């Protein structure tokens, strides 16, 4: 039996050091801020790859600009910190989507394959070479709510209540969406004939 899920929590949460890092960063310590950034930015970019495909880097950078501006006024624990980060990122992504809707910039020929909606073939490709990008491509094939819930729970490390607040859904709706997403992922891998 695999235990791959057990190691990811430790890799995404700072833990007891968080309060000291936050205080140091609020006091102007670049090292502390760098530590916070390195801990959170990869998860932020992965989340944005699904909800803002093609603009994840810019959206993440803009998110950090907002975070830096409000850093001195932030109060909360690590869970609140991550909730704030991803809430800010989500708002920036929504603003970007509205901006794109008003002014479409890229022609269809310019869109890379990674930005195209995933299909059954993407599942097979992902399972052949299961990497982070492939896993994100698999999640991008899920309905938006299910993909967001799984990303916020797993990648951002948020609990159900925090995810519900970010998505403005009830905790029950978040649980249902997460379970449906996981079942669908299981179905996709089963349909692709993957046996691990």
């Amino acid at each position, binding site marked *: 039996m695999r235990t791959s899920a057990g190691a990811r929590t430790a890799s995404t949460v700072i833990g007891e050091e968080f309060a000291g890092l936050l205080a140091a960063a609020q006091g102007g310590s670049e090292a502390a801020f760098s530590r916070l*950034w*390195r801990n959170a*930015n990869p998860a932020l970019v*992965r989340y944005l790859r699904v909800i803002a495909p093609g603009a994840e880097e810019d959206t993440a*950078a803009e998110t950090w*600009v907002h975070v*830096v*501006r409000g850093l001195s006024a932030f109060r909360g624990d690590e869970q609140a910190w991550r909730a704030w980060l991803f809430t800010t990122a989500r708002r920036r992504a929504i603003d970007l989507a509205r901006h794109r809707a008003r002014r479409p910039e890229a022609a269809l020929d310019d869109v890379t394959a990674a930005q195209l909606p995933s299909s059954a073939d993407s599942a097979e490709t992902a399972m052949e070479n299961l990497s982070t990008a492939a896993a994100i491509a698999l999640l991008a094939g899920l309905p938006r709510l299910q993909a967001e819930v799984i990303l916020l729970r797993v990648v951002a490390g948020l609990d159900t209540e925090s995810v519900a607040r970010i998505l403005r859904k009830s905790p029950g709706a978040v649980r249902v969406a*997460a379970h449906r997403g996981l079942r669908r992922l299981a179905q996709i891998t089963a349909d692709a004939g993957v046996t*691990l």
Partner: protein
Amino acid sequence: MPNIPQPQRQDEPVVTEADLAALLAGTTDAIPGLLPVADILAALTAEPTGAELAGEAHALAEFRRQAGAPVPATTARRGTAGLTSRFGVKVGASITAVAIVLGGGVAAAFADVLPAPIQRLAHEAIGAPVPRPGVPHRARPGVPMRAAHGQPAARGGPGAKRQPRPHATATHAAQGSQGNSQGKGSQSEQGKGSSQGQGNKHGNGQGNGQAKQGAARHGTHGSPQMNRRPAGHPRRSVRPGQS
């Protein structure tokens, strides 16, 4: 190739809600049916790539910039300044407009050029001069003065509707009295009660009768029409209360 859904294999374990919750929490081992999903979730939290850490320099630069200048104060100052500027312009314009209107109204009230009802209101409200009956508007150069303009008929008393007539008659009386009725008429406006006798003294019989009529009327209302000099004299309007 048609995509025909395949029935679930009978040997697959049933996935429960608790298994899914545990998979999300990452606290327990995944059951065999969820192993591929567990791998997918593990891949989502794999070690960061170089591209995912490429923006650190930009973030640190922003951090340094904000550390040098306190952001909340700057943001608040910028936002508040814009708001204050726009709001201040509107408030300033409104205050200016109201001040102009009120100032003009007050000035007009103290200059006694408002219509009698409004002037009366101004008198009660801000202590402006009481509207003078028969002098609703200050005489303006080049504008002929109307005898009973703005004067309520009820206040005009008897004979108010015949206002033009004493005007002409007074002129005749003044002519008949060789200007003496002018000064005496002023006395009658002051309510001294001597205009009648003076008018009789210096005027003729006709002038006396007319002066009496004018005194009866203008001793009450103080119309300046009676005090006008005959044609050829320097135009001088004598107002009530002036000697």
